[in-house]
């Protein structure tokens, strides 16, 4: 079947390092941890937590940058999504006319609606029986498609609008779905990505499931530790990322600089565990993405791992990567040690980080990886000092609670 080639022409980033992709690249290449102790932030709730570490935003997008009639429907989640999207559009230099055309769509994602707005709504509902919700925009902040709908309204979009919600696989799936829509010609351009706001409740959920790091509370920059023998769980983060994807024909027609090509996408679900994807399901997903790309394992130059630093998750992923790339030591690293785990936004932020690695020809290591765990001993980990390496094709893994796996393959663009 003939299908359109799908290229990346812009991105926008809100990461724990700040607003803008350059701040994220600076943090990654300096091997600077964005993880901090959150005891003060949690306040009186802190004693309920084992995990007292997180990677919050060091710089928040100013809600006042959004016109009031749109802002009233946005929680922090949608404000971040909006900021990443306008930056992606500016980066790709798309004209306002194109943005408002029927061929311009959006596929955005988040784990849930704004947890901050949800908390406020329930607080009002429970404490004040004479009021129902805090204001008219409450539902529009809480609804699970809050990012997609709010960004679309604020930008005046008229094309297809989908919302994805699959926890930590969300933005990788959003990019994959956008790719599929562009391939079949349903749209010419699509904004896609994900957003995640950090809320104490999110940290508490990971804590409850014993998936959050707690042994490094007094040394926060030393955790999370992807693939390390001393890892003890992940660290929740925040942020938003957006890609501007378009068909190759669209990009060439407007002479847009092309930053990379999405060549493969696959997703599957592992029904055997809600909390943990199995090695077998991960292997199947990576192989399916490579098959979709028409790329044999030996042509992959880098794997950007999901590796959140949970004990079971990293082990399964390490064994899966080794199984797929057996015979060829493809360099592997995870960016969770730098930025924590931004859940729904993690996939897109790490994909943008990997795009920069491809552009620079220099790979970023897994921060805090000192001694690989036995399951990851067979991988070719990017050395702590980084690695000069030409990357023509990389693979981006994302796995989520619920057993959802999603994998993208990205190539350097060549006509």
């Amino acid at each position: 079947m003939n299908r359109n080639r799908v290229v990346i022409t812009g991105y926008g980033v809100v990461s724990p390092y700040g607003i803008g992709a350059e701040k994220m690249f600076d943090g990654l290449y300096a091997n600077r941890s964005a993880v901090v102790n959150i005891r003060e932030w949690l306040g009186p709730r802190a004693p309920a937590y084992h995990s007292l570490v997180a990677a919050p935003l060091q710089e928040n997008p100013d809600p006042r940058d959004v016109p009031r009639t749109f802002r009233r429907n946005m929680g922090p989640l949608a404000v971040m999504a909006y900021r990443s999207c306008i930056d992606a559009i500016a980066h790709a230099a798309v004209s306002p006319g194109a943005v408002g055309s029927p061929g311009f769509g959006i596929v955005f994602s988040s784990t849930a609606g704004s947890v901050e707005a949800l908390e406020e709504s329930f607080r009002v509902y429970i404490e004040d029986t004479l009021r129902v919700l805090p204001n008219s925009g409450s539902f529009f902040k809480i609804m699970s498609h809050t990012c997609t709908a709010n960004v679309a309204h604020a930008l005046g979009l008229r094309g297809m609008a989908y919302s994805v919600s699959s926890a930590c696989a969300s933005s990788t799936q959003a990019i994959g779905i956008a790719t599929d829509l562009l391939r079949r010609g349903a749209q010419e351009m699509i904004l896609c990505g994900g957003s995640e706001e950090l809320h104490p409740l999110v940290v508490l959920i990971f804590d409850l499931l014993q998936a959050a790091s707690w042994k490094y509370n007094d040394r926060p920059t030393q955790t999370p530790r992807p693939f390390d023998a001393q890892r003890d769980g992940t660290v929740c983060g925040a942020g938003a990322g957006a890609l501007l994807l378009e068909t190759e024909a669209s990009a060439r027609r407007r002479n847009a600089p092309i930053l990379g090509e999405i060549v493969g996408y696959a997703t599957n679900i592992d029904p055997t565990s809600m909390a943990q994807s199995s090695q077998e399901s991960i292997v199947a997903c990576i192989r399916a993405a490579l098959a979709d790309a028409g790329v044999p394992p030996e042509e992959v130059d880098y794997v950007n791992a999901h590796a959140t630093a949970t004990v079971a998750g990293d082990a399964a992923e390490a064994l899966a990567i080794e199984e797929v790339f057996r015979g060829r030591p493809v360099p592997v690293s995870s960016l969770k040690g730098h930025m924590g785990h931004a859940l729904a936004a993690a996939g897109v932020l790490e994909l943008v980080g990997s795009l920069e690695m491809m552009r620079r020809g220099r790979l970023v290591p897994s921060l805090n990886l000192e001694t690989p765990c036995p399951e990851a001993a067979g991988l070719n980990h990017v050395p702590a000092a980084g690695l000069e390496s030409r990357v023509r094709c990389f693979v981006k893994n994302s796995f989520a609670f619920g057993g959802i796996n999603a994998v993208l393959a990205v190539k350097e663009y060549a006509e």
Partner: protein
Amino acid sequence: MSDTRVNGMVKDIFVEFFEVKESLVRPEATLFEDLGLDSMDMVDLAVELQTRFGFTFDRAADEEKIRAIRTVQNFCDYVEEKIKILNIKLPD
């Protein structure tokens, strides 16, 4: 507008909550056309009245009255009437 305290509090709602320029909040200004409010803002206006004045609403009676409000003056009159009906004491 008769009660200056009510007028001041009403003006505060438009300026602080709805970010309307203070100079636009004149008695004859229409809420939708001149101040740029919309139907969702009318919901929030009711919420602000609850929060700032302690209003309670009788849905049957109040919905019709709120729907009939066109201008800032209409709105002030409605607020004053409610304050009397509910016997609300405003801070001096």
